[in-house]
C-alpha cells in the first residue's frame, strides 16, 4: 500500500493560480467550485512585511477527518493509493466534511453533493503528474508517495546554503 500525497514548496509558489484553473479544466468543473485554492497572506506594516502563498487542495490525509466525520460513510480511502474520494450517490450535502477538514478542501458542487480533489483519479499514479503539478511554472507542487516526498523535503532543506528555516511542510501526514 502506497500513500500518495502532495508536497508543496511555499518558497516557490508565487500565487498565480494556474493550478486552480488546471484542475478545473482537467476535471471539466464549474468555475465557482474550486477543488484547489490558492491563499495569500501578508502581515506587517509597510515596509516591514512578510507574505506567503499557499496552494491547497485535498491532502488525502492518512487519518482523514472528512471520512471520519461523514454520517453517511460517503467518503472512503483507497487501500492501494491512499486516495480519499467522495461517493456522490451516498452524499447528502450536509457539509460535515467541510466542517471537519483543516484545509477546507471539500466543496459544495452544483448538484448539491460535496466534491473535492480526486488526486486526478484517471491519471496513473507514479507514472505521470497530477494536473496542478504539471501546470505549475515553478514546480511548487510535487505529487508522489509520502515516503519519497519526505526524503525529498529533507534533501531540499539540507541543500540550503543560507540559515536553516523550515521551508517545506508536509501536511496531512503524522510523523510517527
Amino acid at each position, binding site marked *: 500500500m502506497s500513500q500518495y500525497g502532495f508536497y508543496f514548496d*511555499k518558497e516557490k509558489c508565487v500565487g498565480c493560480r494556474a493550478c486552480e484553473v488546471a484542475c478545473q479544466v482537467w476535471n471539466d468543473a464549474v468555475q465557482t467550485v474550486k477543488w484547489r*485554492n490558492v*491563499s*495569500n*497572506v501578508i*502581515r506587517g506594516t509597510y515596509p516591514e512585511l*512578510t*507574505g*506567503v*502563498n*499557499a496552494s*491547497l487542495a485535498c491532502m488525502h490525509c492518512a487519518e482523514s*477527518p472528512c471520512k*471520519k*466525520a*461523514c*454520517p*453517511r460513510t460517503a467518503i472512503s480511502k483507497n487501500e492501494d493509493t491512499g486516495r480519499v474520494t467522495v461517493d456522490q*450517490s*451516498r452524499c*447528502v*450535502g*450536509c*457539509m*460535515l466534511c*467541510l*466542517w*471537519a*477538514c*483543516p*484545509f*477546507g*478542501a471539500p*466543496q*459544495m458542487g*452544483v*448538484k*448539491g453533493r460535496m466534491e473535492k480533489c480526486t488526486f486526478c483519479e484517471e491519471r496513473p499514479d507514479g507514472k505521470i503528474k497530477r494536473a496542478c503539478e504539471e501546470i505549475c511554472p515553478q514546480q511548487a507542487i510535487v505529487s508522489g508517495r509520502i515516503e519519497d516526498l519526505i526524503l525529498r523535503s529533507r534533501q531540499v532543506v539540507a541543500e540550503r546554503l543560507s540559515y536553516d528555516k523550515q521551508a517545506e*511542510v508536509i*501536511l496531512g501526514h503524522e510523523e510517527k
Partner: protein
Amino acid sequence: MDKFTYFWSLIIVAGTIFLIGAYKNVFLKIYYIVWVNRRVQEGNGAIERVVTMPEISTVISEAMLQNRIKNRSTFLWSRHFLIFSGFMVLFFFDCVYTVFGHYLHHYLHYEYFVSGPGRACLKLCMEFSGAVLLLGLTAGLIHRIIYARQERTLIDVKLIILLWVVTLTGFLTEASRLASEPNDPFIAYSFIAGNLAPVLQNMHLAGSEAATAVWIFHATVTVAFFAYIPFSKFVHIIVAPIGRSITQNGNYGQMKRERITEGLL
C-alpha cells in the same frame, strides 16, 4: 393487544434503534469534528478561532430558508421547502396533539385541545401541513420517476416512496376514523380527510375495524421511518442544518485555508 400498547412498544423499539443510529452517525461524528477542529487550532497556534457559532442570519438562511437550493433551482427549492415546512409543522402539531390532545387531560383538567377550540385548530393545522408535505412529496416522486433519470437511484426513489406512503396513510387514517365516526364535532376542520371519508364509506371501508387497521399501518410505517432516519439519506434532516449553518458562515473554507497559510509564514 390494545392499539396504543402496540404503538408504544413500537416507539420503544424504534426509538432505541433511532437513538443507536443517532449516536453512531450523528453524535459521535459531531463530537469528533469539534475535537478535530480544536486540536488543529491548538496545534497551529492560531489566535483566532475559525469555528465559531454561526450568525443568526446564516442559520436562518441555511437551516430555515435553504437559500442555497434556491440558487441552484427555484423548482427544486420550492419542492424541498414544501416538504421541509410541511414535515416540520406537522411533526410539531403531532407532538402537541399527543401531549395536549390525548394524554394531558387524563392528569390535568385541561380540555382545550380535546373538546375545545384548540382541537379544531389542531385538526386544521395538521391537515394543512400534511397537505403541503404531500404536495411536495408527490412533486418529488413524479419528478424523480419521470424526469431526473440521472439523479434517481434505487435508494432515492425507495426513500421518497416511504415518506409518501407515511403521509398518505396519515390522511387515510383520519379519513377512515371519520368514516366510522361521522358525528365528530370537528369534522369540518378536517377539510381533506373529512371529504375523503364518504369515499371510503362508498368503498365499504367504514367501520371501526377498518379504522383501527389503517391506524396500525400508519403508525408502523411512521415509526419505521423515524427509526430509519439516521441510517439513510434522511439523516440530513438532523445534520444538514448544523453542518450548513456552520460552514456557510462567512468565507469558511477560505478562512481555514488562510489559517493554514498563515502558519507557513
